[in-house]
């Protein structure tokens, strides 16, 4: 039986700034000095806030959380590509993306102190809340993007998830919907190599995660997720395409989770120190600093001042967050529905009588 080829597909890999900080001049995206410094500063903020939060968690001052160390470029550079009217849909490890979108550190800390107040996105910002069930936030970004099409808005959605999420049904259903409706959405997969203890190669037999987009009728691209310039360029390009009616894109950022899955996890059970060390050489912040220095935009004096400023900013945010008094029990009831049902009013009254002061 003769056969004929009915399709041929390829996936490209993009790196602009290599591990040592050498930039590919032809691919270098056009960013202003302010944008470049914002990118660097936000990555440093995220790295330092992360470290502070781990120590606070160990002291019992924060709940369990998912550290971001190692993924700063994937998050900050992609979030920076968003316009004000665009929407961002995080998973649960996106503190750096939140910082890039203007969420204050106090809000992040409040969330991790067990208060929904930390999720209260300021009016005018289209940042959705932390989504914990893996991949479950992906359809929201697609639906929000479909609404943009219906409302004829010139905007797009960006949704974050990890390598593990690509095994979930919601990932596949969402990409399928996005392809069918040509929704203006960018799927940003942070392939950080580990879904708790399960390595990337046990998650799927696919050679890349990016290629999964091809099955749904749109492009997938792999980028060096520790290269802020490549992440920015790929995301900006995908967002522009989406806003021009070009439909969705899947971006697979190759990165690494340098810390534990969450503060409740012990990665020494499943991965070696050598592996972690090898990734330290590919650190996203280190190479970006070299890049800034080579462009004569950064020196050690500025570095020392930034470190000092960020430390002070974190200290202030911690003080502010810890000064917020515990909320009254009413807060537990007030947002169940627009109006409290008679039963909820009764239960609230009971809770008030037993409020632990």
């Amino acid at each position: 039986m003769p056969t004929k080829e009915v399709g041929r597909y390829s996936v490209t890999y993009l790196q602009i700034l290599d591990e040592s900080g050498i930039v590919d001049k032809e691919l270098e995206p056009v960013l202003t000095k302010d944008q470049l410094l914002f990118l660097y500063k936000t990555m440093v903020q995220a790295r330092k806030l992360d470290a502070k939060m781990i120590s606070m968690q160990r002291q019992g001052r924060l709940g369990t959380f998912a550290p971001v160390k190692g993924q700063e470029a994937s998050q900050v550079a992609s979030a920076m590509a968003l316009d004000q009217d665009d929407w961002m849909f995080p998973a649960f490890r996106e503190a750096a993306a939140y910082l890039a979108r203007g969420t204050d550190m106090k809000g992040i800390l409040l969330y991790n102190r067990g208060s929904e107040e930390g999720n209260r996105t300021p009016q005018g910002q289209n940042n959705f809340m932390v989504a914990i069930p893996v991949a479950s936030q992906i359809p929201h970004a697609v639906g929000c993007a479909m609404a943009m099409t219906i409302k004829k808005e010139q905007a797009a959605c960006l949704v974050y998830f990890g390598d593990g999420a690509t095994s979930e049904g919601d990932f596949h259903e969402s990409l399928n919907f996005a392809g069918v409706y040509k929704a203006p959405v960018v799927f940003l997969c942070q392939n950080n190599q580990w879904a708790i203890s399960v390595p990337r190669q046990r998650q799927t037999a696919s050679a890349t995660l990016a290629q999964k987009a091809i099955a749904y009728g749109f492009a997938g691209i792999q980028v060096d997720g520790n290269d802020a310039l490549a992440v920015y360029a790929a995301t900006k390009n995908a967002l522009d395409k989406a806003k021009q009616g070009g439909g969705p894109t899947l971006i697979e950022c190759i990165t690494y989770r340098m810390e534990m899955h969450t503060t409740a996890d012990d990665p020494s059970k499943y991965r070696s120190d050598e592996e972690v060390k090898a990734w330290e050489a590919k650190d996203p912040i280190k190479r970006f600093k070299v890049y800034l220095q080579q462009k004569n935009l950064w020196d050690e004096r500025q570095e020392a001042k930034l470190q000092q400023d960020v430390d002070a900013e974190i200290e202030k945010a911690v003080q502010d967050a810890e000064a917020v008094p515990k909320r009254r029990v009413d807060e537990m009831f007030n947002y169940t529905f627009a109006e409290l049902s008679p039963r909820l009013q009764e239960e609230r009254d009971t809770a008030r009588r037993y409020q632990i002061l």
Partner: protein
Amino acid sequence: MAKLTMVQALNQALLQEMKRDNTVVVLGEDVGKDGGVFRVTEGLLNTFGEQRVMDTPLAESAIVGTAIGMAINGIKPVAEIQFSGFAYYAYPQLEAHASRIRNRSRGRFTCPLVVRAPYGGGIRALEHHSESKEAIYAHTPGLKVVIPSTPYDAKGLLISAIRDPDPVIFLEPKRVYRAIKEEVPDELYTIPIGKANIIKEGADCTVVSWGAAMKTTKEAVEEIEQEGKSIELIDLRTISPFDEEAIIESVKKTGRLVIVHEAHKMLGLGAEISAIVNEKCILSLEAPIIRVTGYDVVFPFFELENEYLPSAKRVKDGITEVLAY
């Protein structure tokens, strides 16, 4: 005013509300060209076009998940799940997100969507097409659950559900879809969510039901009344948050209560109603509360479905037992 079936009344509600409010959209499997497998969305595609009447790929979780994404961005989606037996695939989206978005964001984002699904038995359907699982949704804080029992109620309640600021699960008893016709006003009207309908007042016993079981219950009540008893019949209309006050006030008057539902007895809504009556007016009770319900078995293939569903005879015997106590 015209005499309409429940399917026609629901169709009219969607048509009129979509004309009134251009943010209302319909999405689901076969809701466009086919007009829905029960024809509830018939004609909407021609009137409103593909952007507002979306034939979706076959994926319940994404139907509800994308509806959530639309709802948070100013669109009012009415998602159809073809049969409630397939809605479990979408339940994680309802439980983890739709029900929690207002709370999680402190009211910054809300999720005003409607998920419609035909539910319940009695139409000789295949497996997974006959269950009554309203209690699952009622057990999920942040979701409202509405079940109409007549064409008139269906139209008014669906319009209320679409206008509601929170997510509403709207279960349509398919046994009633074409079984009865009644006068339905031509214009838009609403029926409040959370309020029961006292179908008839009575003095000797309160009977509470909803959905398709209302019809059987009415037959039983009529027979009992012919024997000289006076029954207060309540159609709950909203399963969550349900109208406790209407039931309590009624039981205080009659001293007796029978609850009829198609769902399994174990943790069905009857259990909750019974518990609330015990908590709030046990001293008014002259007899134990009786629940006439589906059995705690897998819903049978249709050869035996009428053995599973509460029959008028079973309901009548339940009421008789309570009256005789």
